[in-house]
């Protein structure tokens, strides 16, 4: 106990001494440091902070030191996280490899693969992307068609991946590819690592309905991939992918905690755009009522999440509750977005022109972007199917 307390104090001292003041401000999106070959730093402080953290392996605090990690116990890593949050230190490095692929590779990779890839992730030298979805494989992921043919000394990969987050800024991609066309569809899939600098790989940004370009379509045209880039066994990539899922969920929660929340308090927004009447009520009764309904549902959702947390703590978990959370929260976010537009009227119809404030533009862009919430990560329809089957035991 004493050593843990000492660890906490030492950590705190080091952070205070080493984290520049500018790196202790709330993070904004443009200032996130993502790794990779095209890595850049918007200022000296960010670079300094990144390098100091990297050199201790604290970009990946709980990974083994032999691969460049911090070598901490999970308790220690938690303390580092708490201390960083308490001091307001920004994360030193953002990367899908750090959150999702790295942990899976530590579990499933060969020693050779770990030695090649893990240190580069810790040191922010390689930026990773995920290659799962395809144009014709959305909810039905296992129907993917990108194929890797065994050519003796290498695989020859052909196909198209969708929704490669920042694919044009990434260096390597971990992919699900079909290696057996005749097997039942989940069984002919392998998990393959591909250097995106290889000839025949092209990542083209797709414009979203809100003008953003963060996702790419990634084309593979006769791409030669060394055979030792296979993770796990041939045709058993589906189980690697399933195992990786748990890290994906962690990542989702990290991502949502670092997302900028610019919209602010919706009650304050409503008062600003709609005004109060002489009795202190929101001047538009219908919006007042819609606002209340939203707040109540959102509060109910927050209590749902809290209850699940309490259940886990108490060890008595009832099966169904957890399954409702994604459906409820993503639907409610969309209700909220539509309500924000209604509240803002004509001021909620654009992300162009200086006539609109920064937060107005952001709100409208988010409204459009958040339409993806009920689609990505398992559509609402899939969620309802799962609830019907797993929680309600309805027949199929």
């Amino acid at each position, binding site marked *: 106990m004493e050593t843990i307390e000492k660890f906490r104090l030492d950590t705190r001292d080091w952070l205070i001494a080493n984290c520049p003041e500018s790196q202790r401000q709330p993070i904004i999106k443009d200032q996130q440091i993502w790794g990779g070959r095209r890595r850049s730093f918007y200022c000296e402080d960010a670079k300094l902070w990144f390098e100091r953290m990297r050199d201790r392996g604290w970009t990946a605090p709980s990974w083994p030191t032999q691969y460049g990690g911090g070598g901490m116990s999970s308790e220690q890593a938690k303390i580092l996280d708490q201390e960083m949050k308490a001091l307001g230190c920004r994360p030193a490095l953002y990367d899908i490899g750090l959150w999702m692929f790295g942990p899976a590779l530590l579990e499933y990779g060969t020693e050779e693969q770990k030695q090649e890839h893990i240190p580069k992730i810790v040191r922010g030298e390689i930026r990773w992307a995920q290659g799962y979805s395809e144009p014709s494989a959305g909810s039905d992921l296992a129907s993917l068609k990108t194929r890797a043919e065994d050519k003796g000394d290498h695989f020859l990969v052909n196909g198209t991946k969708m929704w490669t987050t920042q694919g044009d800024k990434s260096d390597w991609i971990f992919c699900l590819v079909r290696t057996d066309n005749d097997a039942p569809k989940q069984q002919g899939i392998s998990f393959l690592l591909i250097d995106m600098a290889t000839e025949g790989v092209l990542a083209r940004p797709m414009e979203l309905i809100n003008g953003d370009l963060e996702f790419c379509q990634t084309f593979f045209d006769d791409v030669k991939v060394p055979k030792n880039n296979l993770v796990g066994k041939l045709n058993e990539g589906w189980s690697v992918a399933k195992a990786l899922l748990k890290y994906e969920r962690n990542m989702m929660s990290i991502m949502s905690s670092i997302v900028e929340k610019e919209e602010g308090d919706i009650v304050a927004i409503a008062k600003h755009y709609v005004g109060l009447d002489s009795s*202190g009520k929101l001047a538009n009764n219908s919006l*007042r009522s819609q606002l*209340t*309904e939203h*707040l109540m549902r959102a*509060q109910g959702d927050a*209590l749902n999440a809290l*209850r699940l947390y309490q259940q886990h703590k108490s060890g008595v978990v009832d099966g169904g509750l957890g399954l409702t959370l994604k459906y409820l929260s993503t639907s409610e976010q969309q209700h909220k977005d539509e309500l924000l537009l209604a509240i803002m009227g004509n001021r909620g119809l654009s992300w162009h022109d200086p006539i609109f404030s920064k937060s107005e533009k952001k709100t409208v862009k988010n409204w459009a972007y958040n339409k993806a919430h009920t689609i990505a990560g398992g559509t609402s*329809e899939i969620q*309802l199917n799962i609830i019907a089957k797993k929680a309600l035991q309805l027949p199929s």
Partner: protein
Amino acid sequence: MSMVLNEEQRLLQDTIDDFLSSNAPIEQLRHLRDSHDEKGYSIDLWQQLTDLGIPSILMPEEFGGFGFGFKGLGAVMQQMGRNLTASPLFSTVVLGASTIELGGTESQQKALLPSISAGQLTLALAVDETHHHQPLNSATSLLDQDGQLIITGKKVFVLDGHSADKLVVVARSSGNTGDPEGLSLVLVDSDAAGVQIDRTKYMDGRNAANIIFNNVLVSHDQVIGDLGKARTILQKVLDRGVIAMSAEMLGGCQEVFDRTLQYLCDREQFGVKIGTFQALQHRAALMFCQIERSKSAVLSALASIDENSSDSSLQASLAKTLINDCYQHVSNEAIQMHGGMGITDELDIGLFLKRARVSMQILGDSDFHKNRYAELNGY
């Protein structure tokens, strides 16, 4: 707010579950309804529940209470909701005894709480004066004539007012209709001179009463709390009532949902179980999501009473609104998914439908609570 039950509360829940399903199944409600029972609840059952200590569930230990707390009460109310149990628990204990416990003098408490614990005294709260719940709109007057208090006015839809031994009357000694100040709580014997009680049967088999107070004489020691200053106590009592009723509704809603799921698994049409139809599966899943959300709100509100939280009013309005809307939706879907059989009295589904509508009105419909929630949030 801890929404998880502790060991004792879980035990209580199981005990009541077993007890009610064997001693007070829905058949009992049908019998009370069809025999036009005078009280509208089974005296035997109330005595058995008394033997189990249920009326003391909220009371301080000095008055025979068990310390199960409001979450314990919530567990009992949920089971009563599942079994559509009619009993004086809500009116007598949640509303009546709470008033005395929160606002009564020591002598009032000593005089009344033990009789309630013993199942020998029933109470009813006479608050509303129109068909929509508006507690501050009380106009029933309380005049002080040379030390003698006189109540004049009319109360409507007083739950269990037809059978209660004593009435807790919300009356106004100053201020105008709508003022939060100037209200008092007065204990009046049901058979006092000038009290005229007309029973009202609801469609769910439960009862209320319209009550006229025609120059009813009461003494100062029948007043609970300070004269004209009932605001805070009344608010707390009503919040307790709202939350306890929400718990009952949660139980009813879950039960009618469970029965519907069972029907979806049993009923065949077109050669398959109707539960295989994806459209029905999705609607069932949507109901489940809504129920879970309402459940969290109800459990948190129950805990807020135990934890003496400052936002109990907010939580009460949240819980009641969510469960009102949820029970309405789920009971309608239950009828629809049961098809023709759902609209016959042979199944129990219609009993839940009717109980849903009656309980939606008790101590405030969704409009009332949404409005209050907005006001409490300052907009």
